[in-house]
């Protein structure tokens, strides 16, 4: 059995809420291996985004351990974490967060620049833009793109760093069904081709069923669907 890319051991996370605490995650165990596709479903507010942020090292757990490629990263200083995250993980969100001041191609390249993966960056960005069907819009500004097009750019931006795992938090949440379907197809295809593990947070059980592992987050614990 290969070593896992991302491993969560007994992760817990709670937030201050009024006088008491809101225990969002209680004891989450999760292993993500190279090429895995994983879906996480759950009611709104159950803690899916919180879990994804913990897996990405953007947030620190109150208890439990996070391992990236078998080494513990819990409690690492922020800047070291940032450098390792850039190498390992790509992220896609429900909102696209494109930088409005720069053109589409530059937005995609920015992913590689921040991650420090600048070899053939422009070439790779162009290839990815072609893959997501936006080659002819590379000189456009984000404001001129539709929601679906923007999400495609965001996906290309996450892929350009050649991550080993892609964490997607409701990537189709803001899109109509048809557009959502095509984005999902594209996302899955790309991850499949590149051998990238995909962790998909979604409300859509059809998309969830397409993953090799499906989880339900309920009362702070992951249950198999």
């Amino acid at each position, binding site marked *: 059995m290969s070593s896992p890319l991302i491993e969560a051991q007994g992760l817990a996370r709670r937030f201050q809420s009024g006088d008491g605490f809101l225990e969002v995650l209680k004891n989450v165990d999760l292993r993500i291996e190279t090429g895995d596709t994983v879906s996480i479903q759950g009611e709104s507010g159950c803690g899916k*985004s919180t879990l994804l*942020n913990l897996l*990405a090292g*953007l*947030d620190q757990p109150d208890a439990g351990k996070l391992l990236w490629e078998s080494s513990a990263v819990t409690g690492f200083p*922020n*800047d070291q974490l*940032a*450098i390792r*995250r*850039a*190498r390992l993980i790509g*992220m896609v*969100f429900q*909102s696209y*967060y494109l*930088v*409005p*001041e*720069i*053109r589409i191609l*530059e937005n995609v390249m*920015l*992913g590689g*620049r*921040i*991650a*420090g993966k600048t070899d053939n960056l422009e070439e790779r960005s162009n290839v990815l833009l072609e893959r997501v069907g936006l080659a002819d819009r590379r000189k456009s*500004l984000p404001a001129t793109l539709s929601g679906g097009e923007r999400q495609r750019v965001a996906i290309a*931006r996450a892929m350009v*760093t050649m991550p080993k795992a892609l964490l997607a938090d409701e990537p189709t949440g803001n899109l109509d069904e048809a557009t959502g379907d095509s984005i999902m197809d594209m996302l899955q295809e790309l991850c499949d081709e590149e051998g990238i593990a995909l962790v998909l947070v979604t409300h859509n059980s059809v998309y969830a069923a397409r993953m090799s592992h499906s989880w339900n987050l309920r009362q702070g614990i992951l249950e198999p669907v």
Partner: protein
Amino acid sequence: MPWYLYIALRHLFPQGKRFPIFTLMSLTGVVLGVSTLIVVISVFNGFGYEIRSRIADTYGDLRIVTGGLLNNPYGLSDEIRSLESVETAGPYAHGMVMLLYKNKPLAPLIEGIDTQSDQELQKYSDFLIAGDIDDLDDDSLLISSGFASQLSLFPGDEVELYTPLMMLKLLESDGTDVLLPRTVRVAGIFETGWQRVDENTVISTLRLMQDLYNLGESAHGVRIELNDGYEAEAISRELTESLGNPYYGRTWMDAHGDTLSIIQLEKRMMFFLLFIIVIVASFSIMSSLLTFVIRKTREIGLFAAMGATPRQLAACFCAQGLIIGVAGTLAGIGFGYLLLYYRNSITATISNMLSVADSMNKIYGFAYLPARVEMADLVVISALSIVIATLAGLIPAYKASKMNPVEALRSE
């Protein structure tokens, strides 16, 4: 280029869009501050330089004097002239006379110049606005322009001179002597451009001064012009030492330093006052950048999610202060030079509008606005404004680096 500098540039100068108003305002502040500083400081330099060169023209860079009279002035002059750093040297005598023309008396300063020196003659020849330097002989004077206009004197007019020596004689003789003035001719009228001299000076030959003051072959000192006027202080010390008692050197700074140190002081005061413009500009940079950081919260969260370190995030916003500082300073220097280039038409227009054209000449002693850009000032002004603008980016940068990426991404 690191990504955070690239993003900093693009935040300020977006692709394919108009110049953001924030960039424009921040730049304008720095440009105004820097250009005003450069113009005002350069004009002060100009005044200093002009006054210095006029003092040097009339006083010389340096004079060798004794407590009393110099017995062998030409010998000493020759000795000094043989020094490498000395351009020319010659004896002079100076004092005060009472000058009477059509019963109007005035008491100008008089200086007897070395007429054996062609350079000295050439200099006054250049200053002449009427008459001819060749007409200057031992029975004539060159009269400064202000003085001439007070008495309505023209070349060829004759005036009467009384010296303090004559008065003394009159006193000693209990008034029994008859006062016989020396009658001399006006050979020319000169104007140096320096009000102090133009108002109240007459020039004669050394011989005439020696007669008037009963000096015989003596003089009051040796007037020296150096190859490099800035060496005056050092060479003065050297000569004081090598010539020994009773000779000592007196530089133009020793004689007229007060005027220059006032200008120096005013220059410094203006610098601090005007630098406030740059500081105010930096506050506007800071407040704009702070709002900008807040507006970009989600973007900052995204950068963090993509692997940006807090330090890079800080650098991104600090760099925006730096870029505004550098761009504003460069543009400010350019604009400052432009203002300096057209300064005379600008001041002419303004003084015409206010009808004060004459008073400027009267107050400052110059008919035009002198200006001189000095490298040292440029460096200080540029360095300080860039540093201040960069400092203005520090607080916003700190704020950006302290953002929690999760909360930044969650923020609406």
